[in-house]
């Protein structure tokens, strides 16, 4: 495992986290994220990203999973209800016109653990996923699309009311 000089010490923690998360990526180049070849971290490996799923906050989860931050893009379309009929089953889906998509993730900010689901999109698979997630309470839902090594995101607020009429 070679590691280049680290011009950004504050990312050491993230790197350790990723290493601890047993993400078997040979080279970790944590250079400037906006440009420069940054290897796709999550997409390459097939191991369940336990570190990312353990994170409480959304930003930490994204860091743990991808090691970089996302920029909002209107090319990513997140479809989710305005008011969830029931927090236990919230249908959500994402479509994007971005190309070379390698990974898609759904995060629910106010859930105990922000990262809900993460999908590896091999070449030839269309970057569009629908699933049903649980939401603890009203929260921003963010979808992250990793395309050509860069992260793009879309966010929507989904209101969740307490289901059931307690006696």
């Amino acid at each position, binding site marked *: 495992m070679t590691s280049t000089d680290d011009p950004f010490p504050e990312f050491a923690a993230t790197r350790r986290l990723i290493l601890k998360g047993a993400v078997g990526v040979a080279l970790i180049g944590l250079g400037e994220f906006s440009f420069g070849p940054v290897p796709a971290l999550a997409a390459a490996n097939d191991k*369940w990203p336990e570190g990312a799923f353990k994170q409480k906050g959304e930003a930490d989860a994204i860091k743990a999973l991808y090691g970089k931050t996302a920029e909002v893009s209107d090319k990513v379309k997140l479809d989710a209800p305005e008011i969830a009929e029931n927090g236990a089953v919230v249908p959500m889906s994402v479509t994007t016109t971005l190309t070379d998509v390698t990974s898609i993730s759904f995060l629910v900010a106010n859930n105990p653990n922000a990262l*809900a*689901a993460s*999908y590896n*999109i091999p070449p030839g*698979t269309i970057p569009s996923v*629908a*699933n049903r997630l649980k939401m603890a309470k009203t929260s921003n839902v963010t979808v992250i699309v990793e395309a050509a090594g860069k992260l793009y995101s879309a966010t929507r607020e989904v209101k969740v009311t307490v289901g059931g009429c307690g006696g």
Partner: protein
Amino acid sequence: MASTIRVRATATGDTTEVQALIQHPMDSGFVKDAKGNLIPPHFIQQLAFECNGKTVFLADWGTAVSKDPYIKFSFKGGNKGDDLKISWVDNKGASDTTTAKIQ
């Protein structure tokens, strides 16, 4: 017992749309049972789809995926009659696999 995986894969042109529903409690570990003690986490962690020996979709799931989880995606390169292998494994190590024909 019938498999826990229900899947529909339909090919139109060179694109195959896949929908799957899996029978699984997906317990998050945050819920208490009637007597008030926590139900331990029991959820599917990874779900993989393979067609013609190639992984076409891999899902990493956390505790926020609904009970009896559902997933829909499409991929190119599958054609009618091909086999689609679906397999999942959960945090207790349990797993199930099934193979479906693309319609």
